[in-house]
C-alpha cells in the first residue's frame, strides 16, 4: 500500500503515452497519460473503439509504451479480465513469476451504454482489474453523438438544439453508484480539474484487492465547444458548481471527498455559457439543472 501522496513533484517524469494524435486540450488523453504514470509500464491496457484507440494504434505508429489492445466495443471489461485470467493462469501454473495489472480505459459510451454488460459481469466475477471511464459526455470519436452520460441540456449531433427540443432531455446515467451497487472493492469519481485527487485514486485502485472503477470527468474542447486551454479550468469548475462531485466507495461505504455547502457552490450559468454545447439554454433550463444538482446533493451530503 502506497503511503506517500502523489503530486506534481513526486510523480514520475517517464512518459508511457505519447506520439498520439489526440486534439489539443484533450481531457481523455491527459487522464491516460497521468494514470499511466501511476500504473507504470507493467500494466496491460485494454481500450475499446473510441478516440483513445483511434489516435494511438495507427499502424505502424503505436503510442503506448505498455502492452495494449483494442477490444471489441462492447467487450472492454471482458478482454481486460481475459488478459488478467491469462496472466494469472500462467502464474498459478508456474509459467511466470507475477501477473501484472490489467487496466481498461473506456469512454462514456463504451462504459455506460454498449460496455455496461461486460463491465457488470467482470465486476461480479471479482477479478482484480482496474476500469477507468474517461467521461467526455458524448460519442466524440464518431462526431459528438449523445451517450447515456450526456447531461441534460447539452447539444450533441443527435440531440441538437432544435426549434422544439433544446438539446438532451435526459440526465446522466449514474455509473458510479451503479458500479458501487455491485459491492466493488473500490470505486471513485474524479475530475481532470483535480489532478492530484485523480492520481491518488488511481493509486488506491491499484492497491485494491479486487476490481476497481474510476469515473473521471474529462472535457473535450472539440465536442464541448471551448478553447483547448480551458480544459482543466472547466473540469475544476464543474466540481465547484456541484454539477460533478468527488467521491469514493470503499469497504461498502460511500464517502464524499469534497463537500460543498449549499451557499458555496460556484454559479452554474458561467460554467454552462462558456461551452458551445450549452449556449442555447434558456433560464428555465439553467434553473432545472440547478434543481437537479440540489436534489443530487441531498444524497451526496449523507456520504460526507
Amino acid at each position, binding site marked *: 500500500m502506497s503511503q506517500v501522496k502523489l503530486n506534481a513533484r513526486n510523480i514520475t517524469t517517464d512518459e508511457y503515452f505519447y506520439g498520439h494524435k489526440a486534439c489539443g486540450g484533450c481531457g481523455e488523453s491527459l487522464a491516460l497519460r497521468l494514470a499511466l504514470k501511476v500504473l507504470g*509500464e*507493467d500494466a*496491460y491496457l*485494454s481500450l475499446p473503439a473510441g478516440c483513445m*484507440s*483511434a489516435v*494511438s*494504434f*495507427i*499502424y*505502424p505508429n*503505436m503510442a*503506448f*509504451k*505498455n*502492452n*495494449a*489492445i*483494442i*477490444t*471489441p466495443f*462492447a*467487450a472492454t*471489461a*471482458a*478482454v*481486460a*479480465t*481475459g*488478459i*488478467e*485470467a*491469462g*496472466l*494469472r*493462469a*500462467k502464474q*498459478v*501454473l508456474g*509459467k511466470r513469476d507475477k501477473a*501484472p495489472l*490489467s487496466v481498461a480505459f473506456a469512454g462514456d459510451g463504451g462504459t455506460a451504454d454498449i460496455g455496461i*454488460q*461486460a463491465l*457488470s*459481469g467482470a465486476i*461480479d*466475477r471479482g*477479478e482484480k482489474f482496474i476500469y477507468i471511464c474517461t467521461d467526455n459526455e458524448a460519442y466524440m470519436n464518431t462526431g459528438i453523438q449523445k451517450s447515456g452520460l450526456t447531461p441534460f441540456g447539452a447539444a450533441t449531433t443527435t440531440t441538437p438544439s432544435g426549434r422544439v427540443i433544446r438539446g438532451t432531455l435526459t440526465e446522466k446515467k449514474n455509473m458510479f453508484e451503479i458500479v458501487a451497487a455491485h459491492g466493488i472493492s473500490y470505486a471513485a469519481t474524479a475530475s481532470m480539474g483535480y489532478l492530484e485527487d485523480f492520481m491518488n485514486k488511481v493509486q488506491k485502485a491499484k492497491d485494491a484487492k479486487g476490481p476497481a472503477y474510476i469515473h473521471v470527468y474529462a472535457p473535450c474542447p472539440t465536442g464541448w465547444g471551448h478553447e483547448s486551454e480551458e480544459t482543466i479550468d472547466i473540469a475544476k469548475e464543474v466540481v465547484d458548481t456541484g454539477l460533478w462531485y468527488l467521491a469514493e466507495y470503499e469497504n461498502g461505504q460511500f464517502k464524499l471527498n469534497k463537500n460543498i455547502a449549499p451557499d458555496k457552490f460556484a454559479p452554474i450559468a458561467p460554467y454552462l455559457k462558456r461551452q458551445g454545447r450549452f449556449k442555447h439554454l434558456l433560464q428555465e433550463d439553467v434553473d432545472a439543472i440547478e434543481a437537479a444538482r440540489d436534489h443530487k446533493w441531498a444524497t451526496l451530503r449523507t456520504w460526507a
Partner: protein
Amino acid sequence: MSKNNHATAFLNGNEAIAFGAKLCRPEVIAAYPITPQTKAVERLSQFVQDGELETVYMHVESEHSALSACIGASAVGARTFTATSSQGLLYMLECLPYAAGARLPIVMMNANRAVATPWNIYGDQMDVFFSLNSGWLQIFVENGQEALDMVIQSYKIAEDPRVMAPVMLNIDGFVMTHTYESVLVPSQDQVDAFLPPMVAFDHMMQDQHPMSMCISAGNQHNQEFKIRQHRDLEASMAVIDQVGQDFAAVFGRDYGSAHGGMLEGYHLEDAEVVLVTLGSVTGTARVVVDQLRAQGKKAGLLKLRVIRPFPTLALAKALAGKLAVGVFEKDLSFGYEGSLYTNVNSALLQQGVYVKSMNFVGGLGGRDVSQADLFEVFEKLYTIDEALKQGPVHYTQMRCEA
C-alpha cells in the same frame, strides 16, 4: 500400439468434447451456457471444481464476452477454450473476425443448431454459415470419437506458427451433442507428448517486448494484412494434413489422410454417383451406401471434414468423372441455395470439373434425416436429368409443396 493407452468411456458428444478439451490443458476457459452446448461446459466446470483440471474458468455474462475474454487471454499467450451454439454464435459474431485478424489460436466448439425465428433449439447447420467468412478454420465431425480427437488436433493446427488462426469445431446439435457412444479417451501423457504447452508467439503481449494488438491499419496497409491472413489460411491445409498423419501415427485413428485430412471418402473411388455430406448425417449415409452397394449400385460418399480452408483441389479430384453429385446440407441461404452447394460447385468449376450436381436441403430445425430420405436422394441422383427439371435445389421430407 496406442489403443492400450486409451480408456473406453460411454460419452455423449458434448462430453467427448469436454474430455478432449481437458486433455489439452487449456489455461483459460470462458463460456456462457446455451442449449445444446451446455453439457460440454458443465462437464468442464465439474473437472475444474473437482480439481481435475487446473484452469481459470471465467463465468462470463454473455457469448460476446466469452470470446472477448478468450481474445484477452490468448493475447497474453494462454491456451483458451470456449463453446457456443446458434444465437450465441451470432451474438459473438463480431468477435470472430476480430480474433482471426489478431491471429489468435483460440479453439471453440460450436454445437450446430437452428437459428431463430422461428425459435428452435434443435440441430441444423445454419448457424455456422454466418461465420464462414470470419477467418476461422471450420472443422466438422461425424461422431463423438472424431469430436474428441479433433479438439486435440485443433489446438495443434491453430497454434502452428504457419497457421496462427482460431478453429471452430462443429458438432451437430442433439444428434451428436446428446447421443452417447463408446469413445476411446487417450491418456494424458500421450496427449501431453503430442500437444506440448503453447509457446510464446511474436505478436502476443509480453512483459519484455510490449505489443499493441488489434491495431488499426488504414487503406495503405489493410489489404496486405487481409491477403496475408487469407494465404495463411489456405496454407493451413498442409498443416491439417501433417497433424492428421501425426495423430494417426500416435493414436491409431486416421481421418481422411488419403485426401489430405480435408475430406473422407466412402466407396468413393469407383462410385458413379456421390453424395457430399457434412457432420453427423454422414453416419446415416454410410448405411445407405452399404445397402445400395449390396444392390449392385455404385453409390459413394464424400464427407467434408474441413470447409475453411476449402479443399478445392482434393474435392475436384475426387469428384471428377462422376455421373452425378449431390450435396446434402442442413443449411439454406435464403434466396439462393445451400451455401455448401455453392462452395462445392465453385470448386468444381474452378478446376474445370463438369459434373451434374444437385442440392438437397433438409434436417432443418432438427427434423430427423432418415435412411429413407437418403435413399430418395440417391434415387434422384440416379435420375438426375429428370430431377433437375424441377431445379437444382430439392428439399427432403417437405410437408407441403416446395
